[in-house]
């Protein structure tokens, strides 16, 4: 096959705060043949998005090309002038960004945005471009394709918008499309519909692609070959099947195993009365939007109940009710047989101490102006009345427990990595010596390997300290690995709840079935098999 894209020893540098240049892509070479899809895999900071943007001859503000060549269709795109780049972007190479919502202009209709490129490049008249766009919308199974484009971005769902963006990328029939984490911000069931649409498109038009993701299982569905990147260098490159089934390098092996299932040993049936109960909670926000209706949940001492659901299912609102940040309309939260006051302001400090919370975004969960020692020391002082020297000793113990060195005590959050920040959040929760810890999507903002470390830490702490977790997540692979009991939520209602084994073995509730089957598996055939199975059963891919 003809070589379409050839990147040779690409070096991209970024300016640091001190004004020096540091290499963010350090001599990466890769190639894409016509009609082929290359998957770029790596953690944040691996340089994958930088390479993706480089294919469009673009370097982010503060970055520059410092070496190497990007030959696309026989042309080194780095050397192109302004006009050359204009001719390149759209007709030859197009880009699909992670957040369609942030990439579309909210003040323009979808038709105007999708048709802009072919009209500007003189490839079609507005009428032709609209016809083409409507046809593309139809291919992508968007509703009411003739008029879909008359809507504004906020009038369509996230999954639909992401597909509209794929249509926009296809508008000039480019030879290469760069997909930059197009499904990362979507729910699992929506991810399937977008993945299926992208896969169809590429197959039908023979478009080549560069597919960027941190999720190996997702990349495996789309790519012919996978290139693993880390710290701006290539770790490993090979055919998809070979990289997944027989990874050569230690880092790739870690990435593969982090996604694998290693289920938690099963807890026996509940014997004692539950530690915490949520009984028939109905809640709404002041806007009048009802977000929880008649939700109940029971948490046994020393066990983990996972609350699973997609965005908008009300799982985080449930956490707000348990902590007292949102007062429910009806229902109650019962701790060891005693109903807690609905609002946190009415609860005693002793009651507040027993329920601690760990958040999704460790960046905003820690006060950026407080050192680690101050952050961890505050609950020690407030709840346990420790003096300065006792606090120092206990902080050191806690740091040791979460796997950080004692010298971290004097650092500010800005000097920590994402995983380290999340560990400090865990230590702050532990400092209160709680009975219950609510974990709200604690790993979803972290890279896979870091997330795996956090999960292992939480499990170890549960084994050592007998903590009870309410674990809120959208990721079923995590549920399988850490939960004892599962509550599945949708649209503010509990769909199904019970011990993990019962939830995970058929027969399922139809929604649980949809969720379970939508979780990507690390097999290149998985998506095709799933779609075939659903088609046979007459289940639409669009949830």
């Amino acid at each position, binding site marked *: 096959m003809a070589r379409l894209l050839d990147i040779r020893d690409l070096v991209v540098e970024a300016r640091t705060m001190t004004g020096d240049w540091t290499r963010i892509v350090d001599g990466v070479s890769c190639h894409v043949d016509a009609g082929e899809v290359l998957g770029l895999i790596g953690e944040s900071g691996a340089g994958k998005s930088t390479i993706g943007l480089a294919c469009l001859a673009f370097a982010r503000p503060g970055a520059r090309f410092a070496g190497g060549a990007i030959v696309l269709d026989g042309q080194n795109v780095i050397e192109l002038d302004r006009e050359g780049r204009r001719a390149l972007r759209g007709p030859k190479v197009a880009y699909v960004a992670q957040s369609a919502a942030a990439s579309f202009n909210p003040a323009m209709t979808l038709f105007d945005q999708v048709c802009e490129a072919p009209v500007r490049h003189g490839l079609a008249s507005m009428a032709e471009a609209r016809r083409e766009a409507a046809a593309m919308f139809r291919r992508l199974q968007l509703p009411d394709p003739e008029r879909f484009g008359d809507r504004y971005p906020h009038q369509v769902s996230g999954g639909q918008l992401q597909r509209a963006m794929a249509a926009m990328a296809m508008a000039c029939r480019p030879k290469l499309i760069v997909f930059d984490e197009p499904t990362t911000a979507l729910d699992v069931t929506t991810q399937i519909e977008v993945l299926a649409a992208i896969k169809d498109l590429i197959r039908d038009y023979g478009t080549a692609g560069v597919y960027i993701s941190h999720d190996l299982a997702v990349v495996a569905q789309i790519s012919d070959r996978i290139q693993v990147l880390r710290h701006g260098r290539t770790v490993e490159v090979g055919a998809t099947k070979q990289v997944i089934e027989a990874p050569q390098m230690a880092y790739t092996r870690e990435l593969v195993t982090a996604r694998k299932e290693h289920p938690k040993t099963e807890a026996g049936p509940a014997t004692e009365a539950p530690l915490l109960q949520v009984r028939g909670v109905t809640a709404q926000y002041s806007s009048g939007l009802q977000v929880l209706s008649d939700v109940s949940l029971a948490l046994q001492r020393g066990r983990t109940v996972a609350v699973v659901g997609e965005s908008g299912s009300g799982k985080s609102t449930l956490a707000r009710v348990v902590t007292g940040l949102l007062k429910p309309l009806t229902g109650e939260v019962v701790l060891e047989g005693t109903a807690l006051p609905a609002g946190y302001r009415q609860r005693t400090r002793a009651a507040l101490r027993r329920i601690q919370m760990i*958040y999704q975004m460790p960046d905003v969960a820690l006060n950026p102006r407080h050192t680690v020692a101050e952050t961890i020391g505050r609950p020690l002082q407030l709840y346990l009345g420790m003096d300065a020297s006792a606090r120092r000793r206990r902080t050191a113990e806690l740091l040791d427990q979460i796997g950080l060195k004692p010298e971290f005590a004097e650092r500010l959050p800005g000097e920590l990595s994402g995983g380290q920040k999340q560990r400090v959040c865990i230590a702050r929760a532990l400092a209160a010596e709680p009975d219950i810890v609510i974990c709200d999507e604690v790993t979803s903002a972290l890279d896979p390997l870091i997330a795996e470390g956090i999960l292992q830490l939480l499990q170890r702490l549960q084994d050592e300290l007998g903590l009870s977790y309410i674990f809120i997540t959208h990721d079923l692979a995590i549920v399988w690995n850490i939960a004892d009991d599962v509550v599945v939520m949708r649209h503010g209602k509990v769909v199904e709840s019970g011990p993990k084994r019962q939830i995970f073995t058929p027969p399922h509730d139809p929604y649980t079935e949809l969720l379970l089957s939508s979780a990507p598996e690390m097999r290149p055939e998985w998506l095709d098999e799933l779609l075939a199975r659903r088609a046979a059963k007459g289940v639409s891919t669009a949830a």
Partner: protein
Amino acid sequence: MRYFRDMPLSAAIGLAIVLLNVLMAALGPSLAPYAESEQVSTQPWLPPSAEALLGTDNLGRDLLSRMLYGAQTTLGIALIATLISFAVGVTLGFAAGTLGGLLDQVLGRIVDVLMAIPSLILSLLMLSILGTGVPVIIAVIATVDATRVFRIARALAMNLSVLEFVEAAKLRGERIGWILGKEILPNALPPLVAEFGLRFCFVILFISSLSFLGLGIQPPYADWGGMVRDNAQAINFAAYDPLIAVAPLAPAIAIAALTIAINLVADWMLAKQNRTTGGGEA
């Protein structure tokens, strides 16, 4: 001292001028060759000479001495008024932004009313009713400025109080004092400090305007704005001897230099703030 390491030249010059002004205000009276309202000559607007380094003013007083005394009055009143406006504005703004509800509504409407009246008119009105003593001037300026500070502090507190570390503090059972003082204030400080610099400038200009209109610092006390007014006529005689123009220009230049200097320092601090908080990876 690490804070000052990568300071650009403009900010360094600004900081030097600010420090010079602070020195003048602190040591001015003891450095002044003559007393504040001492007449050194019977002739007004003498050009600079060995006896009077900057010449004399409209009443034959030593201009340099007046400048040095004036620094203390102008900067002192501006500093105190700005401090009071920040103490009041930040406290109320934080409380309104964090607690919301009725308190926010009541304070917000009061501020709306005060801001609806042009600040110079409002101040002139209050000064003509209450008299023109220094404490009254400070109170009037502090009130007018506190409304602006309130708006900024409220907006900062609203942005910060929805962040999860503040939520975590609430759930921990912290009292409002801790939440405002330890969680919100340290994070709002850099923009507030930059704002302090700018407000301080406005206040100096404002005092000068008041003095120029005759409702500010009363004679015989020296202040820079008043000195510009007193000596404005001298500009007519500069045709005969350009050096006579020093009398009105010296205090005017002092005001302009300090204003520009403070702005240079504030710009640098704001830029620095943006660099340290906005420098995250995509």
